Every structure is written in structure tokens, then in C-alpha cells.
């Protein structure tokens, strides 16, 4: 009986680690998103160098929103890890 309880506890810890590892994959989307935003921003500046200020503001604003999703994954990971 005690071994089963200990086994269940150890399983829980392992599952927590697996869960955290899976949640970390969620940041992949954020990384791709931010890369896309800045890639497009660079291309836009290359096409129209005069609009650099406006494009920079939009790019940073968009990157913050995209990065936020990645941070949500991080927060979930911390919550799972207890």
C-alpha cells in the first residue's frame, strides 16, 4: 500500500516534468510570430525607407502582443511546476 502511494507520488512528479516540457514547446509559436513580424518590418523598411519610424512603432507593438502568447506558455509552465 505504501509503495503504491510512493509510486503515485513519483509518477506525479514525472508527469509534472513532462507537462512542463510540453508547455515549453508553446513558445515555439511566439518565436515564429516575432520573427515573422520583424522580418516583414525589415522588408517594409527596405521598400520604403522614409516610413521607418512608423514601421518601427508598429513592429514593436506587434512583437509585444506576439511575445505575450509565449509568456502565457511560460506562466502555465510555472503553474504546472508548482
Amino acid at each position, binding site marked *: 500500500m505504501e509503495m503504491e502511494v510512493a509510486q503515485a507520488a513519483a509518477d506525479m512528479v514525472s508527469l509534472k516534468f513532462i507537462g512542463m516540457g510540453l508547455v515549453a514547446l508553446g513558445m515555439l509559436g511566439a518565436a515564429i510570430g516575432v520573427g515573422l513580424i520583424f522580418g516583414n518590418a525589415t522588408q517594409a523598411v527596405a521598400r520604403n525607407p522614409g516610413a521607418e519610424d512608423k514601421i518601427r512603432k508598429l513592429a*514593436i507593438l506587434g512583437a*509585444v502582443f506576439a*511575445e505575450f502568447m509565449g509568456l502565457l506558455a511560460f506562466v502555465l509552465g510555472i503553474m504546472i511546476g508548482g
Partner: protein
Amino acid sequence: MAAEHHNPIAQFEITPIFSFDPVLGYNLSFTNSSLFMVLSVLGIWLFFTLAMRARATVPGRWQSLAEVTYQFVNGIVEENAGTKARKYFPFIFTLFLFVLFGNLMGMLPYSFTITSHIIVTFALGALVFTGVTLIGMIHQGPIKFFKHFIPEGLPMWIIPVVFVIELISFLSRPFSLGIRLAANMMAGHTLLKVIAGFVVPLGLFGIAPMVFLVLLTGFEVFIAILQAYIFTLLSSMYLAEALHDEEH
């Protein structure tokens, strides 16, 4: 000290400095979080009082710094919320400075980052959200305020669905404001601690994590300022939505 040495999460612990624990059922201790909030406000007050002491028409270096900060936030408010929002400028300015100094003070060694706790940032976000919603309802009337959730020219049957989706997205604003700031700060500081934990055990090769740590600290200072800017920018945008009526 040894326990904090290899636990990167321990830096976020709230420890009471003066403990007033069961006062009428609430814990009203003066903690390290409260201390750094007080230090933040003191820092802001000292910075602006001392910098503007010269009162020169052509500003010197410190006065120029204070004036640039003022113009920066003024630009955010006027560009996003329009000239009607001028009377809300002191609030937005205070918000920006509190978040900025809170974030930046967390970059000092052995300090505590007040904005890394979700309860603090959620309180700020909820304050902004409640204030902006009340302002919008008073300014435009409650019916017209809810009309904003339904864009023009939609077929009748889809309006309830769109209304619910827009409402959910509207209600998620205080959470997104709060979690964005807290998660950015917490993630940054945790990463710093984890990398710093590699320096000493590597011995001579600890130079590599040390160099990376220098760059990362610089990046974290940039993120601190950027997150303060984003918080203020989003607050101004929500205020603009609440204030704008005629020009659709």
C-alpha cells in the same frame, strides 16, 4: 543565503520587514515589496524635484532628461487618446513612472522587483480597466458604450455571437495588461538567476556565461523600459476607445 544560491525562484519571495500579522484578520505587514514600492515613489519624486530645480529655459542634462520623459508620455497620450484626454494625463504619467521605476529598480543587485508579482500588476491593470470603463460609460452613456462591441453592417443573426466574442476580448484586458508585465519581469529575472548560477561552478570557463549575463542584463533594462511603454500605450488606447464618440 545558501538556499537562494541555487533556487532561481526564491528571489520572488515576499518577506515581511515589520510584521503586523493578524490585524483585524488581515496581514498588514510592511514587506520588501512595500519597501520597494515606497522606494519607487521616492525615486520618482527625487528625480523630478532635483532635476527641475534649475528651471532653466535652455535645459541642462538632468532637466532635459525630465522634460524628455514628460514629452514622451505626453506624446503617447495625445497621439493615441487625442487632445480630449489631456485631463487624464497626470494619471497616465503616474502609471508610466511607477511601472518604469518599479521595473528599473528591480535591475539593481539584491533588490526586489515589485512588478514581477501578478497581484501587483493585475491591480494596476484592473485599476486602468475599471477607470476607463467608468469614464466611457459616463462620457458616452452605457447604451452607446455597448454599441461599440457590434461593428457596422452585420447580418442580424451573427450579432449575438460577435457581441459575446467582443465582450470576452474586452473583459480579458485587465488580465492581459497585468500578466504581460508580470510574466515579462518574472521570466527575465528567472533567466538572469539561472544563467548566473552557471558562472561559479564552471570555474575558469565561467567567463562565457558572465559575458552572456552582461548582454542579458542590458536586454532586460531595455525590456523594463519597453514594458512600461507598452503598459502606458495600451492604457492610452483603451482610454481613446472610451472617449472617442463622433468620429468612427
